[in-house]
């Protein structure tokens, strides 16, 4: 097979410039070139879109940084864009996004990984036939629906807990359950499909012989899963986590409904605002510097996503070297 490949490649290369075996006429060659041009153009459209978005985000996001001052913006804690003396501190907003994402990963990843293990290692065919479509369905549900469920189920429940915990508190602002925990719970459910699908694929990719060797050495099934299979699928599972982070950090529609959306320190029972929800909720009527600052929040979010992508590329490259 390996010997055949180069020959095949040579054939396919020459066929674009030479005449086709299907026809003796020249127009086939022209068609080949035209289509190659079309394919290249389609390929470049994605690159062009990324480049355009990057340039646009930088152009529209940076002016406000210079007007407000980068330290004042990133480390300021007061967000009062329409006040007589406006203040554009987004420290709490950034912090909320980081903490909210980390918390949802802490909750979502173990559940997702265990589900993936269940589906690839434990489940009988019939059980897997129920679980797998369910997970796929979970991935297909629009994010706003998650938000509505959070609004109808999680928020009232949180409201009752809040009433018990903070009934005598002087400083706590009662928010009826629209708090960080609600948002984190919604987010951790939302990242499940990503985590499950990617880690299941990587678990299935671990060769059967590796498991058999472990079992033959006398390890139990559980020992094999935790000591052999999961470590062998490590790079895929890390990819799953990073993709989950990406999903959580970029989600807006679901959590805008459940998080309360006021700028506060991200404590569990505080009403909080994420980077995404900050943009969503204020873009409608914002003008002037306020609007420009919202673009800067978008830029911060963009940088976050870029970092996550660089990390994921780094991991994937590292994983290839290990193999």
């Amino acid at each position: 097979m390996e010997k055949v490949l180069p020959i095949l490649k040579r054939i396919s290369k020459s066929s674009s410039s030479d005449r086709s075996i299907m026809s003796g006429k020249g127009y086939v060659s022209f068609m080949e070139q035209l289509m190659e041009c079309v394919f290249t153009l389609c390929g470049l459209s994605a690159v062009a879109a990324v480049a355009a978005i990057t340039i646009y985000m930088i152009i529209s996001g940076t002016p406000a940084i210079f007007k407000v001052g980068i330290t004042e913006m990133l480390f300021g804690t007061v967000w009062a864009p329409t006040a007589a003396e406006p203040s554009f501190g987004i420290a709490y907003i950034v912090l909320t996004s980081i903490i909210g994402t980390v918390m949802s990963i802490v909750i979502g990843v173990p559940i997702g990984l265990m589900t993936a293990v269940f589906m690839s290692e434990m489940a009988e065919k019939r059980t897997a036939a129920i679980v797998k479509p369910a997970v796929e369905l979970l991935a297909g549900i629009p994010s706003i629906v998650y938000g509505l469920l959070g609004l109808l189920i999680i928020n009232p429940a949180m409201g009752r807990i809040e009433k018990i915990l903070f009934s005598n508190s002087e400083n706590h602002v009662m928010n009826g359950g629209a708090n960080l925990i609600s948002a984190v719970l919604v987010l951790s459910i939302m990242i499940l499909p990503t985590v499950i699908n990617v880690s299941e694929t990587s678990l299935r990719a671990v060769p059967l012989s590796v498991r058999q060797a472990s079992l033959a050495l006398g390890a139990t099934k559980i020992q094999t899963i935790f000591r052999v299979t999961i470590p062998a699928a490590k790079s895929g599972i890390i990819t799953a986590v990073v993709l989950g982070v990406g999903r959580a950090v970029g989600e807006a529609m679901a959590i805008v409904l459940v998080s309360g959306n006021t700028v506060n320190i991200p404590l569990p029972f505080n009403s909080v605002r994420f980077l995404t929800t900050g943009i969503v909720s204020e873009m409608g009527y914002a003008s002037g510097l306020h609007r420009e600052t919202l673009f800067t929040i978008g830029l911060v979010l963009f940088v976050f996503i870029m970092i996550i992508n660089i990390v994921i590329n780094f991991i994937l490259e590292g994983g290839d070297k290990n193999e």
Partner: protein
Amino acid sequence: MKKTFKLLSVCLISVMALTACGGDAAENNASSTGSNVIRMSGSTSMEKFANTLKETYLADTGIEIDCQFTGSGAGIQAVTDGTVDIGNSSRALSDEEKAAGIAENIVALDGIGIITDKANTVDNITKEDLAKIYTGEIKNWNELGGSNSAIVVIGREAGSGTRGAFEEILGIEDKCVYAQEINSTGAVMAKVASTPGAIGYVSLDVIDDTVNCVKIDGITANADNIKNGSYALQRPFVMATKGSISEQKQEVQDLFSYIKSDKGQEIIANVGLVSAE
């Protein structure tokens, strides 16, 4: 050679595609120079009303209105200086401003309703108590004669006209302690309806029977009480002119009679305002 040709053609096509998108930007700038254009500037709260008026007026008469949204104070300053024809203000004019010869033409009234969830027994709040609720001084409904349940203070996002009006009328700009900031009127209604102990503010026209509408200082919120001035949570939308309307250029006079006409009144009702007529 072939590769260069291919690359070139790819570049050419993409450049053509990109330039096709940027064509109409230059044309938009030329509009505000004609002499029959009505220039208007002022309140950001009146943005929705002004823009709707501008679009409908252009469609009906073909006359352009040039709108700037700089704030009520700046709008009145501009009309005093004569740089615009109409200064929009979402507050009544001061005596000083009137003394400077500015006519206070109230075109519409903006009313705000205070809503609570259905289970709430408090049906009347004074203006002072309302301010205290929103600044976080009053935290429990039992302080206002209601049941022992915490008040969940719900408001709109920064930049919202309703929020601006509400805080301005109560004199609590930037002092509010919100538990939830929500970015649409409908969502405020839904949140208040579903959250026990919640209080919120919305435009009067959207209130339905999923929530309680609270009286302010004993006055029910409705169009009649807003018109006769007894309901506290209201503010006038003023389109101020230098001198009375009859002294203005013909285009401006036409605009005011258009606002008074059925079509104008329809715009006022559509953007959730109460007619001043």
